[in-house]
């Protein structure tokens, strides 16, 4: 799985509103039962559950259009990013061992069909073992009828097609549940078929109402409704930074990255790279500050999460202390040579892309100055978002709270208690971030030293393998940080 896909999966997971998975599964079961109470027909119930899943997901996607603008824009890539679709819909990760693909070749078509097999299905977990699991799969006559996870299939289809619509792609994807574990089959199997616009129109021309055998009524919705997206500079940037393009960039060595960056600037912004960077000439320090500033604001972009946290004065203060400490640690623990290596890497990246005058100006900075500019920009953004740096004093450590003997959670938690409870988690996050920082900092040395390869990826993975090398370590470290952040949110 690509790095960016993995990172996006983590971010998507964190920003959803989660509950316990068993509650999710049982609520899903109850929705189907209530539909069945009305239709009194098993096949119709599954058709309606699928439709409700699709509508519910469209509504959810439509509230977060921005995130989907970064996704890849062709149907083959969308399916290759299936794990990401799964996380968007379900918030649970799908392990690589649980998912397998099979490509079914279609000679007369631009795209093949895909068969996805998922070994373990949370929707079907233990279904049939409880007296409340009453849905009558045995009453289904039509062999084409989907299984219990049809609502999930509808949700996945809805996300996939939402991405294609946002990216103005003419193709559409149909995802159908073929095998169902609740029906006693060995896995959850989904078929994914890609249709062009005309085929899709034919496929969706039959109204859902006409497919139903019972007397229930369901309102039709227009499946091919246009999604409005603003055409702005950000959109141009998002085209450049779509997920698949970033993955491609990460797979290229430095020279390739430079070449690719130049191509993208020419293609998407209709200007030469030199002209693009010329805008920042003589404002090189501000350019670096802007990077720090934008980094913090990008973190806040999705759902205003950072800003919301800082609305709480205690959390704003904790974040302020963390930032200050992080800034101090950077200069305290990172050798100046390492910082200078980063500076050299920045210069090497800009050579050939930016005007020579600008490169000379950047060369005049020291590595330490680069870092200071970054921190200044970041601090400005944090102040915007609610941290009052002027009011911060020395660190104050709180004692850890003892757990209650009966295992219950106290109902009388004051804000102070809740903060005390969160502090050990925050400390763990700081520790992990410091470890992560030290691991990342070994990177430029490897890149500059590995002249034989001169490839970022080779350098990162130079230890043993992708999973065991530095890349694997960094991934694991970020995994842990995301887990801790998620704990903090609950």
């Amino acid at each position, binding site marked *: 799985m690509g790095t960016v896909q993995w990172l996006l999966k983590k971010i998507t*997971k964190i920003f*959803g*509103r*989660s*509950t*316990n*998975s*068993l*509650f*999710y*599964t*049982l*609520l*899903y079961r*109850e*929705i189907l*039962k*209530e*539909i069945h*109470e*009305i239709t009194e027909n098993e096949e119709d119930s599954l058709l*309606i559950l699928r439709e*409700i*899943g699709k*509508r*519910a*997901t469209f*509504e959810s996607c439509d509230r977060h259009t921005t995130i989907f603008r970064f996704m890849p824009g062709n149907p083959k890539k969308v399916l290759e990013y299936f794990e990401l679709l799964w996380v968007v*819909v*379900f*918030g*649970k990760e799908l392990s690589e061992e649980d998912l397998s693909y099979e490509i079914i070749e279609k000679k007369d078509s631009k795209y093949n069909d895909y068969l996805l097999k998922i070994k*373990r*299905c*949370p929707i*079907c*977990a*233990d279904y049939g*073992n*409880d*007296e*409340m*699991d009453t849905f009558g799969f045995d009453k289904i006559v039509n062999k084409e009828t989907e299984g219990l996870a049809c*609502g999930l299939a509808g*949700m996945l289809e809805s996300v996939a097609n939402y991405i294609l619509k946002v990216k103005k792609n003419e193709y559409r994807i149909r995802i159908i549940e073929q095998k169902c*574990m609740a029906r006693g089959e060995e896995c959850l199997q989904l078929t994914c078929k890609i249709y062009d616009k005309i085929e899709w129109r034919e496929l969706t021309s039959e109204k859902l109402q006409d497919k139903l055998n019972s007397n*229930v009524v*369901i*309102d039709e919705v227009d499946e091919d409704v246009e999604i409005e997206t603003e055409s702005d500079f950000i959109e141009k940037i998002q085209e450049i930074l779509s997920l698949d393009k970033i993955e491609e960039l990460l797979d290229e060595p430095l020279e390739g990255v430079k070449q690719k960056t130049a191509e993208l600037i020419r293609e998407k912004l209709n200007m030469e790279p030199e002209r693009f960077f010329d805008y920042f000439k003589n404002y090189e320090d501000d350019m670096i500050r802007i990077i720090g500033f934008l980094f913090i604001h990008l973190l806040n972009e999705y759902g205003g999460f950072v800003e919301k946290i800082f609305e709480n004065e205690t959390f704003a203060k904790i974040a302020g202390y963390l930032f200050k400490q992080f800034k101090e640690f950077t200069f305290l623990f990172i050798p100046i040579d390492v910082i200078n290596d980063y500076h050299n890497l920045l210069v090497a990246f800009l050579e050939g892309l930016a005007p020579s005058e600008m490169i000379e100006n950047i060369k005049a900075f020291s590595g330490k100055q680069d870092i200071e500019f970054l921190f200044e920009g970041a601090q400005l953004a944090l102040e915007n978002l609610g941290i009052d740096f002027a009011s911060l004093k020395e660190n104050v450590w709180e004692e850890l709270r003892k757990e209650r003997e*009966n*295992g*219950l*959670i*106290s*109902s*009388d*938690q004051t804000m102070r208690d*809740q903060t005390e409870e969160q502090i050990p988690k925050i400390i763990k996050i700081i520790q992990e971030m410091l470890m992560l920082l030290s691991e990342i900092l070994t990177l430029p040395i490897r890149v500059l030293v590995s002249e034989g390869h001169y490839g970022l990826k080779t350098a990162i993975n130079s230890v043993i393998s992708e999973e065991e090398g530095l890349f694997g370590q960094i991934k694991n470290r970020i995994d842990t940080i995301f887990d801790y952040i*998620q704990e903090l949110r*609950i």
Partner: protein
Amino acid sequence: MNYSRADLVQTNATMNQLRNAIYHLQRFMKRNNITEVRSRLRRMGKNIAHTYLNTWRPIEKVTFTNIKDVLATIYRNVLNSNISIEVDEVNKRISIQDNDCALCKYHFSDINVAGCEIIGSMVVEFINIINSRQNGFKIEMQDINESKVFGHNSCRHVYIYTGGK
């Protein structure tokens, strides 16, 4: 080998899509002239509690002394909600305020039954099943006084208790 329900208790799932689905279900009910939407949602909550308790239960006995902690534990472990609880001993009422309700987030002008009716009835069923073999403390759902679905800032679930200390 598929997941068991005990496996599911250990993990979380994103509720965004299923939360919306509850309101699409309500629209479907109304379109088919179902009038008792509230009692149907409450039935869903009860059924969830029945199955859930076969896998996890917060405590063996609920009393007036521990009711607040039991409620806080159910809301936290099942719904990932941090709630505030007020007990009115005069009117025997328990009022729960949830600022981040798992089933209500947006205001829908066409909806008149809050999704958290499911939560309220599930909580009642949890406690009454746990205490079913004991003649003592019981609670019942009184009302969802406020809900984000109706445009309020938080959801407020009100229960009536009997049995006392």
